[in-house]
């Protein structure tokens, strides 16, 4: 299993914090093929809030997967809706560490 800390371990999921709201919003974004949300899939690596922005680091299951390329856009829209306000939302696509199925944390 991948050692990246979960949101709860990060202490970021307390209700009302921007990070917590963002994580909750990301749970509403589903991989369209698998039907699993991107957080449970282990695609979201981190969520950090600054004074004027929320920065999400996420990956995809496979490089070159065309539908998966929509996920960052969907994630951005969900976080923007979830946190509200005028905060800028940035979703950065990263490939390190590469995703693998052991990162899934859901009942499949």
């Amino acid at each position, binding site marked *: 299993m991948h050692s990246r800390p979960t949101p709860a371990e990060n202490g970021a999921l307390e209700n009302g914090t921007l990070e917590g709201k963002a994580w909750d919003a990301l749970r509403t974004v589903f991989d*369209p093929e698998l039907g699993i949300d991107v957080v449970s899939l282990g695609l979201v690596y981190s969520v950090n809030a600054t004074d004027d922005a929320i920065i999400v680091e996420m990956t995809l299951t496979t490089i070159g997967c065309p539908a998966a390329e*929509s996920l*960052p*856009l969907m994630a951005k829209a969900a976080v923007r809706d979830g946190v509200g306000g005028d905060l800028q939302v940035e979703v950065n696509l990263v490939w390190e560490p590469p995703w693998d199925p052991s990162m899934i944390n859901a009942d499949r």
Partner: protein
Amino acid sequence: MNSKKTNATGMPAGVPPPWLPLSFFALGCAGMIGCGVALVNAHSAVVTDPTQDGVVCAAHLAMLATLSMGVLGAMHQFVPVVTGKALRSLVLSKITLLTWLGASWLLPLGIGTEHPLVVECGGALASVAIVCLVVNLIPPLSVRGKGVPVTGLRLSVSAFIVTACFGVLYVGDRKANWFTLSGHIVLAHALIGLFGWLGLTYVAVAEKLWPMFFLAHNEKKTQLVRLGIWAIAIGLALLAPGLLIGQQILAWAGSVLIVIGLSTHLHSLSVHIRGRNRRVDLYAVSVITSALWLVVGIGFALSAYLTIDKNHHLGVALVGASISAFAGWLLEALVGHVQKVVPFIVWSAMRQRGIEKVPSGKQLLFADLYNHRVASITFLTITIAIASICCGFAFSDTPAVIISGALLIVSGLLLAANFTFTPLKLIHLSRSVTPRRTIQLIAPPD
């Protein structure tokens, strides 16, 4: 953001518009229906003489109008995605679509109705289609460092060209009688088309799709996959000339290499199945059933080789059964992948139309874009159709041939309807929901 360039809906910039692959797939369904009609029409010939024109017509409708049409659709979608480089031109894609549509129907119908001019027109259209395809695919297929699947696709396109050259030569021979079109010569052509063009494409593409669809990421088997793809290609380069000039040693060496290549493909499938991180679904069942047809086809081929000298009629019938099983391998795999790939493409098209949720308010998923029960029934009808045509050939059983033809017609209709009506229903619902939302927005709060 270090992602590749994407368009507004998140699709990579090089991906062709959805209508292009979907048109190929829809026409492939029409080809399946046509093949079914041709089989029903030629049912008695299948039993008495599988080399008669009616049977050759059905075989060409299967190879050209169904399998090749579907594989061309997959190529147009898959190659730009995997290589990250767009096709040369959408106009070339359109010409390929239209000319291949003409070729894939005129050639079989010309053969079936014994109209040489129609056959020649079909041959000319096929030549245009293949030239356009190759010119269109050269930029993306020239991209280096994209792995074994792209190597396999380069080889499969080369085999497509060779198959077409054979076809044009045979069309010419129908008029000029340059040589005797014996069974071995016809078989050489069929095998290059089946394994070199259609088979290699599937073997190559599967290595990219299986990890995604089975959630089985395995980076350690590249060498084996490379060996498999090259073994099939080199095997065909030996088997085809071996059949053409009647050199058994060459043909045997080629056959052994092809079997080695196909075995690595089956091994890779078993690795993906064992390493999967998903429950067994219709896709997995389709792919496994498809692999079984490959094994059945090899069994029939071996039986035909052992029988043909003692009982020529039975031997030819078993060759027919073998070719049917190999075509079944590809058809089952194609339909299985279509059940995954079409929702994939339609989903993006729906998002482009602004449909991102189902009427219940949940996010639109691939699973919402087709009826699963109909998909399962389609799988069953196709599987029984393949089993029936194999039995029809092997046991010279006329009812089995008719059943097979009828089921192919049903399967083509079900497949097309399933992927058409569900998305259309969603579009219709979204249209009827939108005005109500507008009314709610302008209505004063209670």
